[in-house]
């Protein structure tokens, strides 16, 4: 059953679905007008709260969410020891739920909202109908799924081999790309949870990054001070995935801050 948490706020406070809304998600932004028209009837805009779960492992997934602007959702794996470890992170470049499975399958991971904000929601039934009606929709979503797979594949190797500092730098860059502004509303505690690392270890890494001038860690915020330094600290994984996005579908990867 769909988790009741998945419904955003209803009523007059819910965001409206304007044409301009679609430019806040890279996939929707790339779709031709007739595709959006085909889908619009089955879409609504919702507000996602921090910590909200779009689905839990085992839930039937019946909707796809397209994050808008700086909304970010993480797919996490709940482990037996109580840790919930990040498997991948999806923001305005993508969509969460049913894109690969085509819907009506049981979710494998938990989708949890990291950075709150708006999203466009569409039932998978409507999305599948749109894919059949408009080939461009099917093609664009395939390209997105390919890029998502590349991101996850690279992370498998990255998690096995690369030091936590490089992995943290990579993740901060990914977040910066999606949020498009340097003040990331994140805490070191969140980072530790996501990587399944101890707070002590993450604090040490954050201190090191701060000492070198890459970030400034403030209360509730990690400020990106120098992208260049983060790019020097990170592993090749960041660049390789970004390159794949550009190659498979130009305009899909959210461009960095101008």
């Amino acid at each position, binding site marked *: 059953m769909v988790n009741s948490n998945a419904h955003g706020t209803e009523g007059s406070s819910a965001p409206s679905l304007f044409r301009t809304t679609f430019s806040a998600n890279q996939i929707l932004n790339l779709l031709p007008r007739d595709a959006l028209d085909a889908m619009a009837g089955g879409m609504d805009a919702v507000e996602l709260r921090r910590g909200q779960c779009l689905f839990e492992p085992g839930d039937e997934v019946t909707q796809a969410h397209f994050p808008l602007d700086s909304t970010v959702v993480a797919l996490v794996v709940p482990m037996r020891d109580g840790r919930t470890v990040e498997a991948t992170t999806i923001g305005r470049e993508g969509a969460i739920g049913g894109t690969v499975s085509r819907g009506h399958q049981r979710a494998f991971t938990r989708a949890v909202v990291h950075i709150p904000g708006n999203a466009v929601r569409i039932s998978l039934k409507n999305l599948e109908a749109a894919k059949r009606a408009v080939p461009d929709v099917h093609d664009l979503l395939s390209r997105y799924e390919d890029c998502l797979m590349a991101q996850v*594949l690279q992370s498998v*190797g990255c998690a096995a081999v690369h030091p936590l500092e490089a992995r943290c730098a990579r993740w901060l860059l990914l977040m910066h790309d999606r949020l498009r502004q340097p003040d990331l509303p994140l805490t070191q505690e969140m980072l530790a949870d996501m990587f399944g690392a101890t707070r002590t270890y993450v604090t040490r890494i954050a201190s090191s990054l701060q000492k070198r001038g890459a970030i400034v860690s403030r209360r509730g915020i990690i400020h990106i001070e120098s992208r260049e330094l983060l790019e020097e600290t990170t592993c090749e994984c960041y660049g390789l995935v970004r390159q794949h996005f550009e190659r498979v579908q130009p305009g899909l990867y959210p461009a960095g801050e101008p």
Partner: protein
Amino acid sequence: MSKDSETGNRLLDSLSPRDRHILTPDLRPLTLDRGDVLLEPGEDVVQIYFPGPGTIAALVLHLHDGKSAEAAMIGMEGAIGGIISNGDKPAFAHGVAEIAGPALRLSTDALEDAKQRSPSLRDHFARYADCLLAQVLQSVACNAVHDFDARLARWLLATQDRCGKNNLKVTQDFIADMLGVRRPYATRIAGQLEQTGSIHRGRGTITIVDRARLERQACECYGYLRNHFERLLPGVYPAYAD
């Protein structure tokens, strides 16, 4: 590929006869040798490979500093090439045959045509795509936090499931490279496992001696994935029988 109606690949064999019939004219049998390249990064994916019994392929990343890591292991439960991407896009990871054996090849065009023609076939492959994505999502988390001995046990079980044999033709060096650790370390941990009685190391081989014990030594990732497969594609993941 013994019987007329069966290919030996469980993903294909679990299709309805009608759906399998759509693919049959375009399926080409072949033999894969260890090291055969199935996918080259940057080259468009135009073929899908369906491993047969005992054959194992993998998506492998070549990281800097000469390191590598296996991102996904695929045997007779699945397929490699164009499963998520639907073909005609550049491959991201290397696709390589790890354990030699029979396989079938199908062009991505033929599969896409078949999916257009048959909703049930499209659904079947969507389920598998979901399982493959689940496999790699789990591996990210597993590699991030699980100890190497548990990861090693999981890898050995996964290999045995696909090989269908106790005796795995793999070296400790190969396993180290696939799991992204230094070779002496892998040898040491494998030695520890051997001492518990779950495996026996031979020359260029590893034998699973006590499967039940090895399952207890593996992390929960092994069980999670099997359950997910079973839920989405009942009977497709091979149940290893002693």
